[in-house]
């Protein structure tokens, strides 16, 4: 398990999450390459099914990086996103999966440093959990 490199999918909103990731890049702050970013117009567009599909296809962890609460460019997209995250955590719990494989994060566009740090911490957390049952089933992981 020591050399387990998780696959992590991060749905990042164009205005904050993605811009924060970009900011980390511009400032040359590195974060784990395990994190694969999917840019979305607004995290309100990330439905529960997108989180489930990512896990089903073998992601070991999935998170949503949205604007800070109250700062969504589309008013309340990030609140919708957090509701989806909570719903999927509950589903994972019902299935005996670790709900921590799914997470919600909030950043302002300027929080490049925090984005990188959170990516690092999430990757470590997923490493500690080990490969997800689905990624084991597709025998991608170690």
């Amino acid at each position: 398990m020591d050399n387990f490199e998780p696959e992590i999918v991060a749905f990042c909103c164009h205005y904050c999450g993605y811009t924060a990731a970009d900011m980390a890049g511009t400032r040359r702050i590195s974060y784990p390459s395990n994190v694969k970013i999917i840019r979305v117009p607004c995290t309100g567009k990330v439905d529960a099914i997108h989180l489930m599909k990512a896990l089903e296809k073998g992601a070991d962890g999935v998170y949503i990086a949205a604007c800070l609460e109250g700062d969504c460019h589309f008013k309340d997209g990030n609140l919708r996103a957090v509701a989806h995250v909570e719903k999927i955590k509950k589903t994972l719990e019902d299935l005996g999966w670790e709900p921590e494989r799914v997470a919600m994060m909030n950043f302002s566009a300027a929080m490049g440093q925090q984005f990188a740090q959170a990516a690092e911490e999430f990757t470590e957390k997923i490493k500690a959990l080990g490969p997800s049952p689905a990624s084991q089933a597709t025998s991608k992981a170690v």
Partner: protein
Amino acid sequence: MITAEQKPLQEILGYIAPYEKILVVGCNECVTVCAAGGRKEVGLLSSAIRLNSAKAGKKIEVLEHTLERQCDPEYVDQLAELAGQVDAVVSLACGCGIQTVASQYPIPVFPGVNTKFMGASESQGIWAERCMGCGDCMLGITGGICPIARCSKSIMNGPCGGSVNGKCEISPDVDCAWQLIWDRLVELGLQDRYEELVAAKDWRPAGGGGPRKIIREDLASSKIITEDNA
């Protein structure tokens, strides 16, 4: 519309445990609107079933399909090919849809939802019971508020002694239907109507006379009427 809620996942997983290939079928009507059994929920449940099989180290194939309507044989006919490929079906339609699918295919059909009541949307994500299909609608004399579905005791001449400050005695969160009826009659200037006692209700049209059926002779073909329903 008819409202429903998804069953606990473990119950559904228990039903399908013996099978290797299943079909999850949704319906585009009421259960889509109340987010219990439309295309989206079919996808989510199918995904959850796959995640569960990954965890259990079991192989299961899940097919997904959503019908325009699941309570009409014409639409359910469209499942013929898919139903022929699977060992069992999980239906996310209301009880009417589930039974229609079960009546047409010789494989086990399991409910994926609990069908709740005939209700209306109060606001996004909230549905409340509004009608119990009593077969002899009284809304014309109750100011448009149903005493059958909305009064906890379904009384005809309310309120009862448990009505306090507009709330029903069963819970401070439940409006007293008869308070609502009175307020509405006042608003309409129809207080006189309240003075007329409503006779004891005949519950036969409400289902007390056995399973109910509507036959519209102008719509049903004569063949169907004579052979199936006569």
